[in-house]
């Protein structure tokens, strides 16, 4: 089984009944999610539906809870001892906070790209190969190489690094490192990719490349992106959610949110009156 079949298999399985004529079934459904950091109530009663194979962006001022919510979707908040999550989040109808669910398998299905590029201090090849290796998704060495190459190609990095796959990943430029991180996430064959301000540490040219890449990846993955840049949200996402002080204020088509927001707070934010 090569990478292509891995990804297509995992992508098509949940797409049952998701034909062109049927109503779109949400990939991720959050229902009354509350997050507490100790005493602090960081996220309040958030309910949202995220459709498959599209880009959803979360915007809002600093500390509004958008990153917190993003990290609930692959349960990265579990690593914070004082963090407590209530409510229900399902992916394809499956409750991800179900005690019987293996969080490692969940994270293989829900990849994540972080704010600061964080490649492992290993070779470029090893960076991408690590995921397939720990999940045992490569049958042979040749197969593993194939997965690495196709992941790098999908992340638009292969042509730049094909001659130096054994060089260390930390020696790349910031933008290349971030694309390496995306390739690393893709190599595991996820259905959803979470991106936590992936361009905030990059220059405009690298940002543009990442944005192009996101647009490309949308065809195969469900992407959820947290961003501080409203232009970026407008450029890359189909749907946008606006968070404010732990509340999900408004969610809808990006077009609508930016041109005709219903809520006053959304309007104030996108017109730059606060935030």
């Amino acid at each position, binding site marked *: 089984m090569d990478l292509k079949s891995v990804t297509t298999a995992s992508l098509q399985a949940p797409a049952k009944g998701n034909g062109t004529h049927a109503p779109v079934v949400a990939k991720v459904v959050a229902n009354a999610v509350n997050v507490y950091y100790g005493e602090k109530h960081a996220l309040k009663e958030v309910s949202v539906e995220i459709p498959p194979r599209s880009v959803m962006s979360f915007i809002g001022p600093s500390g509004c809870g958008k990153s917190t919510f993003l990290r609930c979707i692959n349960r990265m908040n579990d690593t914070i001892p004082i963090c407590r999550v209530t409510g229900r989040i399902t992916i394809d109808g499956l409750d991800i906070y179900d005690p019987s669910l293996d969080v490692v398998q969940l*994270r293989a299905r829900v990849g*994540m790209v972080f704010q600061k590029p964080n*490649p*492992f201090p290993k070779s470029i090849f090893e960076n991408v190969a690590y*995921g397939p290796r720990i999940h045992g998704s490569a049958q042979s060495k040749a197969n593993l190489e194939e997965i690495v190459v196709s992941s790098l190609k999908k992340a638009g990095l292969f042509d730049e690094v094909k001659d130096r796959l054994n060089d260390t990943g930390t020696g790349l430029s910031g933008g290349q490192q971030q694309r390496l991180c995306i390739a690393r996430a893709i190599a595991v064959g996820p259905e959803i990719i979470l991106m936590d301000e992936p361009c905030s540490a990059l220059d405009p040219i690298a940002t543009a490349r990442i944005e192009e890449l996101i647009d490309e990846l949308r065809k195969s993955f469900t992407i959820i992106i947290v961003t501080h840049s409203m232009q970026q949200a407008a450029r890359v996402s189909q749907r946008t959610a606006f968070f404010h002080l732990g509340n999900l204020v408004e969610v809808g088509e990006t077009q609508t949110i930016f041109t005709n927001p219903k809520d006053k707070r959304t309007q104030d934010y996108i017109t730059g009156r606060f935030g």
Partner: protein
Amino acid sequence: MTDIPLDRIGVIDTTSAAAKAHVRARYGSEARFKAYGLAAIAFAALFLVVLIADIVFKAVPAFTISSLQLEVPVAGNVVNPNGSSDPIVIGRGDFIKSIREGLYALFPEAAQDRKSRKVIQGLLSNGAADDLRRQVMAKPSLIGTTVATDLLLSDDADLYLKGVSAQRHVVAGTANATASGATGKVTIFTDANVFATELQLIKSVMSRNADELGRQAERASANVADYERQLAAARAAIAAAQAAGDTAAAGTAQSLVTKLETDVASLKAQVFDLTGRAKTFADRFAATGGSENLDPTLPSLLVSINGGIVRATSVGNDRIEGDVLVALTSAATAKAADWSKIVIDTPEASRKITDAEIAILEKLAEKGLVRSSFNWLFFSTGDSREAELAGILSSLVGTIYTMLVTLVLCLPIGVLAAVYLEEFAPRNRFTDLVEVNINNLAAVPSIVFGLLGLAVFINAFGLPVSSPLVGGLVLALLVLPTIIITSRAALKSVPPSIREAALGIGASKQQAVFDHVLPLAMPGVLTGTIIGMAHALGETAPLLMIGMVAFIVDVPQGVTQPATVLPVQIFLWSDLPEVGFQAKTAAAILVLLAFLFTMNGLAIVLRRRFERRW
């Protein structure tokens, strides 16, 4: 300056005198800080250089050894009376006798009487025959032939030749000299005042002796005065008691008086004796010309003439009287360049080697038989009661075994404990308690671990006493807290983004820690391990408790055999009175330091290999 807007507050006028002074003060303070730092480093470096130089200087004699190169007849009836062909039986033969025979042949006259034979024997080490025995055991056909062999000299002879135990200088004669005979008591006459400098030297020593005796006499007289005061007080007490009719008190006072009277009498005799001796020395120093009798408290003067050696018993400006120690070949007149004076500043009474032994040694050296070579023996044997035979191999091997046991135990346990505590353990009262106790353990005096080892490993578990196994276990306990603390610090310093990256692509916590966090923490972990091991390497106190302070001659063959370690060996040697062991102590310190540097070097290499940049 006038165009500065008024609303700007706190503007600094950089041209004002105050601002300039401020800048100057800042530069000054920075320069001073730099100077203090440099001074501190220079001071530390100076101490290091002095320390190392002192040790190296003291250790140098231990790295060479003196031996005699001699042709020795190996007679079959001496070494192999039964005519056996078994090398082990041959090895038990009397090789000492063979080498003595070889040596006596060089001094036929001296070999005549028992006393001089003893002197010659005294120069050889107990291990002098080892080389010959090895040669003959390896090749039994040598029996019946004459074999060239290295005879190890005794510690005292060795130190004399190195100039450690006695100050000596050899001066060539400056005028013709004639001995009155070839053996027994002789007088050597010269044409000029050849011995004036030696006479002067002896007189100056006498003057010093007179001063020293005078001081001793003064101290003794001060004591006498003190005792006499007490005596007067006691007598007054008797009188008072008798007047009061208290017979008991008078009795005790009387006994005190009797005791004091004897003390005073003996002290007075001592003072008299000391003053008398001081006066004699002073008089002899003051008298010019004439001749002086030598005794063992004065420097020795040997004269090497006509193939023999004469020890002066009396020195005059132009002649000496003395005993022949090595027979002269003739009583002919020797030309100025053909004879020499050997002056040994250290008096015979203050050194272990006698004038007679020195005479024989000087003769052997003159014949070119004494050879100084690198002391391989020091690195190839265990401890010995004889300084010249003592080596560090047994303690070095003991150290290696002990360190191996320590490393094998504490590296995996320490690192895994650190990983668990830092990455997996829940934060609660119990783990807090564990953490506090680990920090406390790091500060526990090392001897306490030795007591624990004695009680638990030896008494309860019955492990062998003085074995590297128990030593290693005890040192592992000692080092564990250090390794855990430093490993935790290293793990903590790995950026959390690496953990997130691994978890984000679906690595389990264990995979994230062992695949990414631990490798990145490895340089720090290794640094901590080396600090701990270096600490363990120099540790003596806990090993004393578990019996590793033993006198170990054999090189240990495993971790359960009795052994000692380098620091304990240094401790043992430093305690011994023989001068030869002082050099061995310094040399063993150098070996310990070399061991430490090798270990640290290895750690740096490993660290470089593990280090990754990001």
